Structure formats: structure tokens, C-alpha cells
């Protein structure tokens, strides 16, 4: 274990979510599960800081969705607590009402989330429930559709949408609530590669609007390229830290039924062969390339090989220091 990979455990006092005003949402010692079974989460901690992308990873059935539901207020932990803007979440009507205006969760299966006849109706559901006026609702719906890039789908019946479109429509429904924190359960699962890029681009637009995003995923490569921090569910607890440190931890990654991102494998191999100088870990192909020697002047080896483009993931600036 590298020492940096478990910061929420090791640097406790300074990282206490209650003492830091840039913490938007946090879980502390959350124990949660379902009736008639052992709890899935047995003391889980997670901290979401304003503007810092978090990728939540873990095996099928490890409790990823459960921690998301706890953070969203839809599942009440049997022990531990959820903090939002420094205050403890109360599971009564007014507490939840306030919470849901700050935190929104988009579930994995879009089919079970779209319950209205057309996209506009579905997206307007949340703002209507906030008791806003018609004009304000319309403005929010338009904004959400625009951010998700699905303005053209506004009047389409939900059951005619493709899988990727349904996924974005479901997300728009949460975005129309203008949450400070948006939690997404597997937003890219089942999307084609360009669909994944479109979804990530939409999330970037959301961040520009001041929303902090956490996404749960099985895709370690995406997690490394996209997130500032990774949180891995393992054995009922969470290990959170900078994405490149956490995902490089071979033991942790293996015990959570994940694998190491390919970029880290390639970097290690190139480094082991003396082809790379030591340095920061690359997060994506661009960074990896930058650390290599510049290309020779000869012609490219294969006809039809395009200028090398990276997957259009917007990688976070690596210079952002972790507050500690």
C-alpha cells in the first residue's frame, strides 16, 4: 500500500469534512444494507469537494449504488451520517426536501427513470415539484436540455429514444433541479465510444455551471483520465485519494475486482525499459506521449494512420494540488 492512497484515513484532522468549507457532500462511517442480509457498507467514508471530480469504482454488488443512494438521501444509513454543506442530513420531510435541491442522483437504468410521455414533461417534473412558475420551469428545462445537448429531443416521446438519448434525458431531469452535486451511477455504461465522449462533454458543461460531479463506473481508464479523485469500494469501506495514486495500487485494484488502467501499465513498461524518464504518472495518452521523445521525421508506419488523436476525455489539470 502506498501511503497516499488512503488519505481520508491518514490525514484525518485536516480533512475532517466538517471543518473544511469547500466540502460539499460527505459520508462518514456509513453502515448500510438491505433487510435480511449483512450490511454492504460497514463504515464508509467519502468526501466530495467543490469542483473536484470523483470517480467511484468497485465490483458488481460491492455497494457502489448503496453509497450513492445514501449520499442522495434515498437510503437511510443504519449508522454513520451524511454531511451536506457542513450540516448533517436529516431524513425528515424538510431535511430531504432541502437535500434534494442540493444533491441529485441519476440511476443507472434510464428505462426505469423516465416515467412521462415526452422528454420535456419528464425533465420539467422536478422544477414543477419545486413549485416554480411556468416561465421559470420552462427556462430550467431548456437549460438542462441544452447542457445535455438534447434540445432537439424536447418533444420526442420517451419510448422512441435510443439508449444513449434516454440516458441523457434522465440526466437532464436531475440537472433541471440545479443541484450543487450531481451523482451519476454508470452514466457511460452501454454507450458507444462517441456517446461516452458526448456524455463527458455534457458533464464538463455542467461543471462550468458550478456543479460538482461524482460518477460511478467500471471503466478504470475513464476514471483515471477524467477524475481528480478515485474512491474504490472494497470490503464495505471506501479508499479515496488522487485517481492516479489509488488506481496504481495493484493490491487495492485487484481486491476490488478491477484492473490497473492501461496507461499506467504502459508507462511502467516503458519506464522499465528506460524509454521514459521518471515523472508524474500519466493520466491519459496525451500525457504519456508528452513524456516520450518527439517523433522522428520519417513517414508514419501505416497508410491510413491518422494524426494521433487521444480519446476526447477532458483530463483534469494535473497541477491542481490536493488541499491537505
Amino acid at each position, binding site marked *: 500500500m502506498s501511503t497516499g492512497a488512503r488519505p481520508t484515513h491518514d490525514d484525518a484532522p485536516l480533512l475532517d469534512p466538517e471543518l473544511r468549507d469547500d466540502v460539499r457532500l460527505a459520508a462518514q462511517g456509513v453502515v448500510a444494507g438491505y433487510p435480511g442480509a449483512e450490511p454492504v457498507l460497514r463504515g464508509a467514508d467519502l468526501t466530495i469537494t467543490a469542483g473536484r471530480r470523483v470517480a467511484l469504482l468497485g465490483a458488481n454488488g460491492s455497494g457502489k449504488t448503496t453509497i450513492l443512494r445514501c449520499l442522495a438521501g434515498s437510503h437511510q444509513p443504519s449508522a454513520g451520517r451524511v454531511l451536506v454543506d457542513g450540516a448533517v442530513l436529516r431524513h425528515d420531510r424538510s431535511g430531504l426536501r432541502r437535500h434534494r435541491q442540493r444533491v441529485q442522483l441519476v440511476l443507472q437504468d434510464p428505462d426505469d427513470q423516465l416515467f412521462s410521455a415526452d422528454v420535456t414533461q419528464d425533465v420539467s417534473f422536478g422544477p414543477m415539484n419545486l413549485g416554480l412558475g411556468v416561465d421559470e420551469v420552462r427556462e430550467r428545462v431548456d437549460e438542462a436540455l441544452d447542457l445535455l445537448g438534447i434540445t432537439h429531443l424536447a418533444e420526442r*416521446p420517451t419510448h422512441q429514444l435510443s439508449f444513449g438519448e434516454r440516458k441523457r434525458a434522465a440526466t437532464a431531469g436531475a440537472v433541471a433541479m440545479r443541484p450543487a452535486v450531481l451523482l451519476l451511477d454508470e452514466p457511460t455504461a452501454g454507450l458507444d465510444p462517441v456517446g461516452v465522449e458526448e456524455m463527458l462533454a455534457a458533464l464538463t458543461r455542467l461543471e462550468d455551471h458550478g456543479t460538482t460531479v461524482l460518477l460511478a463506473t467500471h471503466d478504470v481508464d475513464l476514471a483515471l483520465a477524467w477524475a481528480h479523485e478515485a474512491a474504490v469500494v472494497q470490503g464495505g469501506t471506501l479508499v479515496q485519494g488522487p485517481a492516479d495514486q489509488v488506481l496504481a495500487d495493484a493490491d487495492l485494484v485487484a481486491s476490488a475486482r478491477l484492473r490497473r488502467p492501461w496507461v499506467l501499465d504502459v508507462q511502467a513498461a516503458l519506464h522499465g525499459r528506460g524509454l521514459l524518464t521518471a515523472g508524474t504518472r500519466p493520466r491519459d495518452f496525451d500525457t504519456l506521449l508528452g513524456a516520450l521523445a518527439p517523433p522522428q521525421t520519417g513517414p508514419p508506419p501505416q497508410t491510413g494512420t491518422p494524426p494521433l488523436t487521444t480519446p476526447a476525455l477532458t483530463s483534469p489539470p494535473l497541477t491542481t494540488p490536493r488541499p491537505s
Partner: protein
Amino acid sequence: MREVRERPETKLLLGAAGAFTFVLSAIKLPSVTGSSSHPTGTGLGAVLFRPPVMAFLGTVVLLFQALLLAHGGLTTLGANAFSMAVVGPWAGYAAYRIATRAGAPLLVGVFAAMCLADLATYVTTALQLALAFPDPVSGFLGAATKFLGIFALTQVPLALAEGFLGVLVMRALTQV
């Protein structure tokens, strides 16, 4: 039955319809008092699937409720099957046909169907109970008054709620 034999795919539709009826009765209806109750759903089912189909589906749903949820108990299954699976759907369906024949809009018909199916179910149950437990002083009529009185408190609001639910559901369905 005959339909099922001739077209095997209707088996799946029937299975889904029955599962839906079961699930519908597990959906909590919001109520004014804050407590919640469950719709019987047989009125909507009768309009959508016709009463004879509902009689069979309703009986299986009751069996499932008795065994999976311990609702009511199998000891009263015979009585329940008659009131919920036979009387309810037919009363609801009749209300629906009469209303729509009389030129009422579809939604009014659905409201009447849901509302009356629910009411008829509980009136029948009350009468069955009164038959089984006649009042020692006032006999069957007194017992019927008692049981109907109890049900009126709980079931009339529920029947109205179910009627409104039917309208909302139908309106959503006609938009699709």
C-alpha cells in the same frame, strides 16, 4: 383459457398483466390522513383486460398476496376471490360501460370503474362478514350496518382516491 391455448403469446401478456395487478396493489396510495393504503386495482384491470380475465388474474393475485404477503390469509380466500376477483371487476366494468354508453368521456368512465370496483368489493366483503357473523341483537341487517359503517370510514376515501388514480393513469396512457 381457450385464448391461451390458441395463442401462446397471450400467456406472456396475461402473466405481465397479472404481475402488474399484483404490483399495483403493492403501490402505496397517498392519502389525506397521512396513512397510506393500497388500491385493489381490479377496476382498471377490468377495463383493460375484461372482467373474465380479471377474475382469473385476480384470484391468482389473491393467492400470491395470501402466501407472499400474508394479506388476509388463505382461510378467507374463497370469500375474497368472490368479492375482489368477481364482483369488483364486473361492477367496475359495468360502471365503465354504462358511463361511456351514456356519452360520458373516457376518463369519467375510468373513474367510475375504479371507484365502483373498489366500493363493490368492500360492500360484498362487508355483507359476507355480516352473513358469517350476524349481530346477536339486530341480526344480519345490524351486522351489515356495522361492517358497512367501518368500511365506509376507510374505503370511501380510498375508492375516490383509486378513481382519481385511474384517471391519472389513463391520461398518461393516452399521451403515450
